[in-house]
């Protein structure tokens, strides 16, 4: 059992970044950096060694975050980081495998990979940075763009219904599903800690914000104003509770939304073929942190 905050050293984000790549190329006000900080903070608190951490990302703004992490990083193809992560985790169960993806990446082009990763329940932590837009390509509509919002491909406002990523992941069988907003940095860190400790597929959606492209086009204000608007959307009763009620786009649930005890894929695979499961309970060497 690894306690949160067990690491004696204070969290210093630079210890986990490839600072030689700075300045980064994220836009001012982008929420992805806050999510990245919370993720690295959780990794620090769990005492996960950088050598045993593999971060696999897809394409888009979310995909570009991986390169900045001082770990084994794989920047894959659009929508398909989970396929690479599946192979990597099965080949190397000793590694902690974290996937960073986006709303376009995993809910549109990579939707099939997401639902099957949820179904298999392999021990991967999947972080979906949801900024409601295709930022990297200039601001096109995504499966999570709110109704009526303007994008470069919805000049009259978005007329399509949205995906609820957490509902989708839960329905597909993810054994740990949670959501947080970037304003709650420590709550987000704690959610990541829980997700990383969970044995099985953990899915964490971060409500991020794209100020430069999406916010500007929709007159949503500056970054603090956008983040505050996410906070205003949260249902108070959802704090720290497992919420059964369905999600509504303007009525956010945050925290752990569902958690079930299902057999982890690789453990089950080994047992099925009568193999002893390799001991991987040392968090410094990756594997399930229990």
């Amino acid at each position: 059992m690894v306690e949160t905050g067990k690491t004696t050293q204070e969290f210093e984000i630079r210890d986990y970044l490839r600072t030689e790549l700075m300045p980064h190329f994220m836009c001012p006000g982008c929420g992805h950096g806050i999510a990245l900080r919370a993720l690295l903070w959780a990794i620090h608190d769990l005492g996960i060694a950088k050598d045993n951490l593999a971060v696999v990302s897809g394409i888009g703004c979310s995909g570009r975050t991986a390169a900045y992490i001082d770990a084994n990083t794989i920047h894959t193809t659009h929508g398909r980081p989970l396929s690479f992560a599946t192979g990597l985790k099965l080949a190397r169960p000793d590694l902690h495998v974290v996937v960073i993806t986006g709303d376009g990446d995993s809910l549109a082009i990579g939707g099939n990979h997401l639902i099957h990763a949820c179904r298999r329940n392999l021990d991967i932590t999947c972080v979906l940075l949801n900024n409601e837009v295709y930022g990297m390509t200039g601001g096109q509509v995504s499966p999570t763009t709110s109704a009526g919002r303007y994008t470069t491909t919805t000049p009259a406002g978005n007329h399509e219904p949205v995906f609820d990523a957490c509902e989708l992941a839960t329905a597909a069988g993810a054994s740990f599903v949670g959501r947080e907003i970037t304003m709650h940095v420590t709550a987000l860190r704690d959610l990541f800690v829980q997700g990383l400790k969970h044995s099985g597929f953990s899915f964490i959606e971060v409500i991020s914000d794209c100020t430069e492209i999406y916010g500007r086009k929709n007159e949503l204000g500056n970054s603090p104003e956008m983040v505050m608007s996410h906070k205003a959307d949260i249902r108070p009763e959802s704090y720290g509770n497992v919420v059964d009620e369905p999600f509504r786009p303007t009525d956010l649930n945050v925290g752990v939304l569902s958690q079930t005890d299902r057999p982890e894929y690789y453990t089950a695979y080994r047992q099925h073929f009568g193999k002893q499961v390799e001991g991987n309970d040392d968090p410094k060497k990756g594997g399930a942190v229990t």
Partner: protein
Amino acid sequence: MKKTQVKLQAIQGNHSSALAAIDAGCRFYAGYPITPSSEVAEKMSSLLPDVDGVFIQMEDEIASMGAILGASLGGKKVMTATSGPGFSLKQEHIGFAAGAEIPCVIINVMRGGPSTGMPTRPSQGDVMQARWGTHGDHPVIVLAPDSVAEIYQQTLRAFNLAEQLRVPVVVLFDEVLGHLVESITIPEADTFERVERKWASGPEAEFQPYRDSGNGVPEMAMPGSGYRVHTTGLTHAEHGFPTQDPEIVERVTERLFNKISANYSLVESYEAEQCEKADVVIVAYGITARATRRALRKAREKGIGAGLFRPVTLWPFPQERFIEEVNPDAQILVPEMNRGQLSTEIERIAGRERVTSLPRFDGEPISPQQILEKIVEITAHG
């Protein structure tokens, strides 16, 4: 059974590639069902758990290709198998493997195309796709065996080349060879070479994951060994991170090709039979080479000087050997189960006026009789 025993087995081509993969050290396979290659996946699913390997049937062809690349980056020897439509889907990640230099082996059992085409009929229609199926300039090695035994040998070789040169290697055959049952001798374990990847060594701080380590091929970093590297499909410099610097882009792209050409003696394989003095040389590969041999015997009985040039390495084509081996005055006949895909390459090498294409694309293999008739026709006019 003890490994030292020679095993004679009657097996089908698809199973032959699976056995070879296991013998080559493949310990991860991800696939997706597709006719006529599914038997490769079926065999791997039964063999891998016994050797502490992992088999997984993924949600689609793209994911199965992605999964093997992830496992290869984790340090395993990996393989997948597919056929036409699946080969099309896999191209995205074959390009990733070529660009990020990830060793992998892809079996493509060709069927009729385009699109879903004729799933149970043989074809050689993916010859150009195997070379240029994914976008952008990229290296790839394609091997075309012509028997169940050679499928075994070339699959073994495919693993060695993939590991040694960090390149995707395609083993290309067709439905007939995939389902053909022949007796083959499984070689003793210590009689064939098993090449291992060159892993990163030396000081971690100075390590550059895409720096030429001497023969054009960079060393690979094993995750967890202290080298924390970045792998990306974006064009990257020697340090592994994206670049758009024209000078660097040109240099790193050149190296991708140079690592193959500099090591081409390892890559090339072909068979040349009576090519030097022949009046007509048949260039044939895969199952078509089998029909060609029979046609050649008949032609020679008629007193026609006919030779065979059989590329086993289809891409990059053994051009220099072809020029060395083949009589420069000989007519060239290229029978193939497509509308003349390799024949355009032969025209490029030998000149259009010397080359006759013998295409067949009706879902039937080319018969020896067809080839013989064409040989007679060419030599009569010649």
